[in-house]
């Protein structure tokens, strides 16, 4: 009886913050992040979507054109090429995951100097994408490049990988796979440390070995590593900008552009400044990313719920 009025007085005596502390504090901690995320990510997304309905050169007046930019995109051959190249990147870049897994399995042993081998395999991920691009463009050089030297030894004719519109994109993807494989390898190496030796032992007693052991015992235990590898590889494929810029500059005649590169050319490069058109490309790219973002969020949520 005496306690209740006491708390009542207490409640009134304390400030608003004290009374709502538990509800408010998390939001206070989140506030700076929310603010920056809104200003630099969320609001620009809506600004881009808005801008894609205008014609604007970045200097003068904007003119409302409705869906005109999207109509133009629909029959822009360069956009189609860029879109397909994005698909190629997404598909072939994923090869980094199995490649990384096999290198990790190969390196997951104890022999003298294994640390050195591991760091050598990891090395390409440490160097800048620009350097990777330069190294590979020299490797591919039509006359003096190493690739044609090797092909020449086995009697195959010289090929100009980066100068051939049908090969160039694959050439760049191969260059991108080099550091990305190293990244996936590191993820799997850490994942392999967490593999339960007792389960392996039990599987061995049950007579599992080779591919079956890998597929039914090891890989399921590596699921978290696979998920992260998948996420970073998809993100990597969608930001393939720097390799393209260094190795071919989008050429020959625009056949190696991806959406992000095409957007940059149309909106921000030397001969661009069609801001509305660039924004329309950005919106399409955003929608593609949204599919993956939705998938990632969904699977993380599933994960949380399972616990």
């Amino acid at each position, binding site marked *: 009886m005496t306690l209740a009025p006491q708390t009542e007085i207490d409640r009134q005596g304390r400030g608003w913050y004290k009374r709502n502390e538990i509800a408010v504090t998390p939001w206070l901690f989140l506030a700076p992040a929310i603010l920056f995320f809104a200003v630099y990510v969320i609001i620009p997304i809506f600004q881009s979507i808005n801008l894609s309905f205008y014609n604007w050169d970045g200097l003068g007046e904007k003119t409302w054109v409705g869906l005109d930019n999207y109509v133009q995109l629909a029959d822009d051959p360069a956009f189609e090429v860029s879109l397909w190249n994005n698909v190629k990147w997404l598909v072939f870049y994923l090869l980094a995951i199995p490649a990384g897994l096999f290198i990790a399995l190969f390196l997951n042993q104890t022999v003298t100097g294994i640390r050195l081998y591991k760091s050598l395999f990891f090395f390409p991920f440490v160097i800048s994408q620009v350097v990777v691009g330069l190294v590979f463009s020299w490797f591919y050089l039509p006359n003096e490049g190493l690739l044609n030297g090797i092909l020449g030894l086995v009697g195959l004719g010289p090929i100009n990988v980066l*100068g051939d519109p049908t090969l160039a994109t694959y050439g760049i993807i191969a260059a991108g796979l080099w550091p990305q494989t190293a990244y996936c390898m590191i993820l799997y190496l850490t994942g392999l440390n967490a593999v339960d030796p007792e389960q392996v032992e039990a599987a061995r007693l049950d007579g599992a070995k080779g591919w079956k052991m890998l597929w039914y015992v090891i890989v399921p235990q590596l699921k978290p590593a696979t998920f992260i590898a998948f996420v970073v590889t998809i993100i990597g494929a969608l930001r393939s900008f720097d390799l393209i810029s260094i190795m071919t500059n989008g050429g020959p005649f625009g056949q190696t552009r991806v959406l992000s590169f095409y957007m940059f050319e149309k909106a921000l490069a030397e001969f661009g400044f069609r801001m509305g058109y660039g924004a329309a490309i950005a919106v399409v790219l955003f929608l593609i990313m949204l599919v993956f973002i939705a998938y990632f969020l969904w699977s993380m949520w599933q994960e949380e719920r399972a616990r």
Partner: protein
Amino acid sequence: MRSMFKASVAALGLTAITAGGAIADGHGLSGDLKIFLDTSNPAPRATMEAMIADFAEIHPNLNIETTVIDREAYKTQIRNFLTADAPDVATWYAANRMRPYVEAGLFEDVSDLWAEPEIAENLASTKGAMTIDDKQWGVPYTYYQWGVYYRKDIYEELGLSEPSNWDEFKANCQAIVDSGRSCFTIGSKFLWTAGGWFDYLNLRTNGFDFHMDMAAGDVEWTDDRVRQTFANWRELIDMGAFVENHQNYSWQEALPFMVNGESAGYLMGNFAVAPLREAGLTDDQLDFYQFPAINPDVALAEDAPTDTFHIPSGATNKEAAREFLRFVVSSNVQTEINNGQNLGQLPVNAASAVDNDKFLNEGFAMLSTNSPGGVAQFFDRDFPAEMAAEAMQGFQEFMVFPDNLDDILNRLESVRQRVYQ
């Protein structure tokens, strides 16, 4: 005016006594003068900084602040600083490249400077390139010729001479190809080098006026006359005139072919001379000729890209900026900054002296006496940006796959219809 010029002479003469007189002459200007430059390469940068130091010496009360921005980055940054934080003077390019800024009202009309007799008389040759809507929007400070730079020793070895018409041009080329070399090196990775070839082939096939009509969007890309230009180009391509795999190289990466003697020539601007000399070619090995006539009925016309100074309309010290522009185009300053130790290009002032350099002399003579058709800027400066970007990409494709021509021209025509609507 007159005291101005005396002052600049004095400053460049670097004699202490006359410099003192110069200071007395130029006490009128004060305040801040912000200058933005895109001359980021070492030699042009030093030239510009020395020139500005001379200007500062004449105007001691003027607080000059110079900002040098990387040449490529400048091309996108200019849009920001012209609107947000305008300097008093900024470098840029002539003709269509300045049109977006003129139309957006970001460049100051400097027609008053061009009305002054010193400038009106001596800068007449570049007036057209600085004019939009009958007004002038800046002043030029340097320009350079384009043409064929070739290996004289290879020509002599094969018994060839500088061609004076299209047939000789092709016959020379055939002889060079037969000797196991390519006639011309080119690196088309960054596309604009192919624009140079189109400029010359079109100027020689259809003439300057037609070329400018195209730039203005009045000619269809599928027109038979345009096709004729490409047909002439194709003759060279089919002959094997151009170095292979040029789509992989930048213009600098294409230089070694010429230095090593694998290619006999290079259609380029005069800026190619410096790296070729540095790579070890002497003036006995390297020579220059004007691109010969193709259609004898059209007057010869040349490409001569012009670099310029402008006053942004948001400038705060326009009086000092105008004085700076007068200083830059004055004959002595022009002689000084364009000489072989500095920019190594052509002065825009007719009263200036051209440095005693083989290529500069040939270029100056060519542009002043043998270019009756007119002087174009360059493909990507004469044509609107979007048209130029699409077209140069098409040129590169054409040079690799000449059979795609119809497809390319149809594409360019649809771009033309959108760009010039």
